[in-house]
């Protein structure tokens, strides 16, 4: 178990923001709440992870996220 301090929280925040802020880092968010999953989001997510091929210097993360609210548009990909 890690002993987290306020300093640790600050460092983690800075690390994550730095990782996400790099121009060649791309985040693809797949809406995977229950509604999204029942609309096929899990299949979408797996397809993206399986078929993505590294190109140029891009670092692509395909991230499951919760409900963005536009349920009528599920499956939502950003």
């Amino acid at each position, binding site marked *: 178990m890690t002993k*987290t301090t306020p300093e640790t929280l600050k460092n983690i925040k800075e690390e994550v*923001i730095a990782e996400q802020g790099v121009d060649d880092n791309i985040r693809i968010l797949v809406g995977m709440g*229950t509604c999204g999953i029942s609309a096929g989001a899990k299949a979408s997510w797996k397809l993206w992870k399986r078929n993505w091929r590294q190109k140029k210097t891009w670092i692509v993360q395909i991230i499951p996220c919760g*409900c*963005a609210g536009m349920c009528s548009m599920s499956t939502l990909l950003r």
Partner: protein
Amino acid sequence: MYKHIFAGDPVVKYTIDGEFKTLSEQNFYQKQKRVVLKNCGEINPEDIREYIAKDGYQALAKAVLEMSPEEVIEVMKESNLRGRGGGGFSTGMKWSFAAPNKADQKYIVCNADEGDPGAFMDRSVLEGDPHAVIEAMAIGGYAIGATKGYIYVRAEYPVAVQRLQTAINQAKEMGLIGKNILGSKFNFDIDIRLGAGAFVCGEETALIASLEGKRGMSRNKPPFPANQGLWNKPTCINNVETLANVPQIILNGADWFRGFGTDKSPGTKVFALGGKINQTGLIEIPMGVTLREVIYEIGEGIPDNKEFKAVQTGLGLQADV
């Protein structure tokens, strides 16, 4: 894939409203103010680092290291956050009733039973931002002197249960719940308990009975759970959405929270729009937005321009309009 996603040449029929815009630029979000849903759809709910990057657990650090329990309760009272489960009772007042009671054990319970038909506000928070609830329960525990929390979640929400458990495990691993949180003297632990399909267990005294292993039966009040609740110990029971407001109130202050909504009911409310409306979904709007704006502006009206006949605003709000 490269051409359509990265080279600025999207397939128009797969974009929202035929335009390639960011989510916040969509018409659907223009009247919304996402406070409770701030992180939903923005972060990976199964990665605590992403929650921390959005100022996660900063409020807990502020509460346990810089504020006394009484000060935390005072901020909650000043904010006038009212119970979002439908009761509308002041959260700060509820915590202030439990805090002075002397007991060897106190509890804070998250009511995640969400029995209202068609409602999925709480489910969305638990699935999209479970750490907000965990952090809020720890803050509430600190405020009232509770060292144990339970999240009573309906068993019909397996994704929410799994994400909550992952979040609790990660928070424990990082020492954000457990013993001597963030180097303070405050200890707090959380467990999940599953409901068994009884709508009545959304009512706090029936919920308590269910947690104790008994049949979910309501009882008369007084005694109120804040004085005599779970196993006859002082217990505060709060709704998921209520709790999800807490970290931001502690971090930004009561005045910030009172800056939107109405005088009697500051803040926002999350609604699940369902049924015969063009744009179904989950919305979060400041208190005071009219039903007309919700139906015709955010919800984009009734299909085929049919005439409005009725709306049911949810059992907790107790009215068919």
